[in-house]
């Protein structure tokens, strides 16, 4: 029995390796804000959100598989949350009744495994009941398969076979097992046997047959012998105890997997339920293959900004289909960084199967998302600022692959403009040649202007909008780079002086 709600044909892997630049992504895109909104204080939900959002899917089809399941969840939120309670209940029962396999010995393992199984059977019956009542209300391939599996595998007959075993395994009459002589004439291959004739007096019947039987009765005070006999019995039931305990573990893993795979969708539900009251739109993005070049959206906003401000924020409309280089210039604090972050967030959310914060959104999937942001502080004393930036860039180049998406934010500006622009130009050109899509936020005129003069078909220039009166709309619009950055504005504003 497999859950398969995160992937069509495999289990979700909570230990899947995250991209090597996960720390940079988390910091640059302020992912913690997103994960907190999904988790609502639940540590487990936070971990899962973190894991899933950072391990991107790169097949459009795999993305659609999750999108469909998420649509079902949005439609049947109460039922999904009820199913999510089943594995939670299992955890609570285990804690409350001290259930679990802690013993080192087969006898103890067997009896605790039986108790555990009895508890699981109760929960599985409940899951079966939900499936029977609500399966019809779900449309996605993933949920349909899931419910069909529950109904097929967990029949009433099956439950009665299981309960019968749980009774027999208590061995009230005695234990029968076979063995052979191994190396050094030590007993090996202990195998628990079912007597050929069952019934209440099976022990008597086994021992009263014609072949010779040698019996030994322990002296009542032979404690050592009693212990040895117990050990021997343990060897006899070793395999069956293992089988039962592993079965308990398997069911436990099934419930754990159910919790793990639903947790992501619960996080999405939590998120959607916070965006709705703000009036912020959500859209299921159209993801296309990584070999294509698509990036078109309307009303794309920075979800982390909205969550932090707790209100609707400015959205942007851009059509960059067919473009590989997007250069964003313009006023400081004009929304350039916010825009760049919204690009990165939407890409990660899309590739985890989530809805995105926009009215509409389509983009090609990327094989990797990389961010290179100017860092305010230089953490290491050893290297200068430019040296530090370059060394981070070098690590990115080590990991980047064609069809990746690279977000650069004021990079390589820690030297004079001519040098900085030249370094940035060489890096950008080489990335484009490597079929990497580049979004570059810069106030370096040399750099932006240089690309603009080349009149490249695959480049688009955006600018932070500035109104005639110098005020900002925080909107990003198409426009060629302008000679002055707007630091002066900021200066006047901060210092309260007039131009």
């Amino acid at each position, binding site marked *: 029995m497999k859950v398969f709600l995160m992937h069509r044909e495999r289990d979700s892997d909570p230990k899947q390796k995250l991209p090597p630049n996960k720390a940079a992504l988390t910091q640059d895109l302020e992912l913690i804000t997103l994960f907190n909104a999904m988790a609502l204080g639940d540590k487990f939900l936070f971990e899962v959100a973190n894991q899933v959002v950072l391990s991107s899917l790169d097949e459009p089809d795999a993305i659609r598989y999750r999108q469909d399941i998420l649509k079902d969840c949005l439609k049947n939120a109460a039922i999904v949350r009820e199913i999510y309670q089943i594995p939670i209940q299992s955890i609570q029962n285990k804690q409350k009744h001290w259930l679990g396999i802690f013993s080192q010995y087969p006898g103890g393992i067997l009896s605790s495994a039986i108790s555990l199984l009895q508890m699981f059977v109760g929960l599985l019956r409940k899951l079966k009941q939900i499936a029977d009542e609500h399966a019809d209300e779900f449309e996605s391939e993933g949920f349909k398969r899931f419910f069909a599996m529950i109904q097929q595998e967990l029949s009433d007959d099956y439950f009665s076979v299981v309960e019968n075993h749980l009774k027999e395994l208590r061995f009230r009459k005695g234990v029968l097992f076979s063995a052979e002589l191994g190396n050094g004439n*030590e007993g090996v291959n*202990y195998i628990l046997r079912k007597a050929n004739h069952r019934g209440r007096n099976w022990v008597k019947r086994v021992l009263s047959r014609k072949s010779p039987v040698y019996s030994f009765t322990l002296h009542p005070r032979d404690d050592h012998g009693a212990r040895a006999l117990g*050990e021997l019995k343990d060897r*006899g039931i070793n395999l069956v105890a*293992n089988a039962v305990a592993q079965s308990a573990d398997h069911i436990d893993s099934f419930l754990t997997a159910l919790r793990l795979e639903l947790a992501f969708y619960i996080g999405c539900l939590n998120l959607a339920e916070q965006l709705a009251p703000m009036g912020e739109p959500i859209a299921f993005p159209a993801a296309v293959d990584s070999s294509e070049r698509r990036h078109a959206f309307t009303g794309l906003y920075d979800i982390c900004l909205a969550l932090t401000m707790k209100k609707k924020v400015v959205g942007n409309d851009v059509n960059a289909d067919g473009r590989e280089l997007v250069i964003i210039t313009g006023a400081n604090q004009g929304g350039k960084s916010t825009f760049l972050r919204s690009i990165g967030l939407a890409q990660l959310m899309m590739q985890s199967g989530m809805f995105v914060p926009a009215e509409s959104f389509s983009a090609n999937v990327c094989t990797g998302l990389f961010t290179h942001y100017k860092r305010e502080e230089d953490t290491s004393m050893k290297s200068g600022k430019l040296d530090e930036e*370059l060394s981070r860039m070098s690590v990115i180049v080590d990991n980047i692959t064609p069809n990746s998406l690279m977000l650069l934010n004021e990079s390589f500006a820690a030297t004079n403009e001519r040098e900085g622009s030249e370094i940035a130009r060489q890096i950008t050109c080489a990335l484009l040649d490597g079929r990497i899509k580049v979004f570059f936020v810069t106030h370096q005129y040399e750099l932006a202007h240089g690309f603009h003069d080349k009149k490249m078909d695959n480049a688009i220039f955006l600018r932070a909008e500035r109104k005639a009166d110098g005020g900002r709309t925080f909107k990003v619009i198409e426009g060629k780079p302008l000679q002055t950055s707007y630091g002066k504005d900021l200066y006047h504003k901060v210092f309260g002086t007039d131009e």
Partner: protein
Amino acid sequence: MTYYSILSYKNVVREEKAELPACFADLNLNQVINAITSKKEEYYLKPFFYAPLRDIETIRYRHEVMRDMEGEMLMAHIRAFAEKMVLVRRYLALVEKLDFNYHKKGWFLEAALVYCDAVTDLARDLSLAEIKSRGFLAFREYVLSYVRSRGFESLAAEARKVKAGLSSVKYSVVIQLGKFSVKKFEGETDYSVEVETTFEKFKQGAVKDYRLDLYKGSGMNHIEAQILDFVARLYPEKFAALDHFYGGHSQFVDETIRIFDREIQFYVAYLEHIADFKRQGLVFCYPQVSVASRDVYDHDGFDLALAYTLLNTEKPVICNDFYLKVPERIIVVTGPNQGGKTTFARTFGQLHYLASLGCPVPGSEAQLFLFDQIFTHFEKEEDIRNLRGKLQDDLVRIHGILARATPDSILIMNEIFASTTLKDAIFLSKEIMARVMELNLLCVWVTFIDELAALSEKTISMVSTVLPENPALRTFKIVRKPADGLAYALSLAEKHRLTYAQIKERIKL
């Protein structure tokens, strides 16, 4: 040819020195030999590695055996043999400790079975193997005649027969409270399988294995012993055969085989150790050795101890060349610190030592000298409060070395006098250098004093180098050239391999 030992063509009684040669610590040879022998403690191999040879014929004898052992097939056969011999020893040790009759005899039988297997397989494998060395050819003859001997044949046949009988025994036990019964097995069905099948559908991949490890190694409690007695009563003839076997074959391990099993591990240990480096593209060669010629050279050599610590790191091992052509005798190494100078000096010493054991050495081609002694003097990080005392100690030690050294000795000097004044250091170094030249020692001298490099026709200069583009980066290459300290500036981007051309090279389409 008569077989004496796989380590020597002569029948010499070697005395096994357990004492560490004096140069070991400075040359990091202790690390090398520890690493080589650490997984082979039970063979007690260190004495073999503590005994350098000056006998060219024995070194050639070992080279031949080592070359044979480099064949993967032969190596695999020897490993298989060794693994079985380990078991034989373990089982026989167990027999000594056990209490119950048939338990003891059971393990004795196992030991004999494994031994027969080990020797039979070895004889068969050697007769098919392509071997060229005098050592293996002679040993093969020995083993083949041993396995055909009447004593060995009867041991093997009887052991197999007794084992077959015992293996066919199958019995059932019924346990009730305070009581158990034993009978022959009568085909009752397996209950575990039934339970597993029922829960099959929940399988989720790997889960914990709750099976208790049944193998306890030694010991059988009196309940198990009682069961074994009952089983012996159920199958009396099979156990009578075991009694007979035990009585007839008390000392079955052959002495020559036993010694071979230990000695061959000298080769196994060394080859296993260098295999890791070979996988990384480092090379080893069989050096030409001489007690007469003072021309020495090695191409692509490296420090085996350093290479070992760099295993499993990203850092590459840097290889270096050197050569000395008569009348050149002394390599003076100068250049930036942390540039690999000490490593180079150690490498020179290690190469000569390993060559004297009859082992292949780091490098693609080498000619090395068979020394009588290796002397080393390495500057130690000392208590600087007592500089005068330290200088005196140094001089006393160097004096002692020069008094014991002969023209056949090798001397490695590393950064001596680094903590004295420059003037003193120059004066003392020149004085000592003169004595070294007079003794005609083969010598590597690491120093910060450039003048030493061009003192006479006997000295040559080698320099640790830096990247011309970025003096901060050491290459760890030591090259033969006059001392200089050139530095070149380099753009930061280039250093980070971030120019257009460099990135294009790095991103693979």
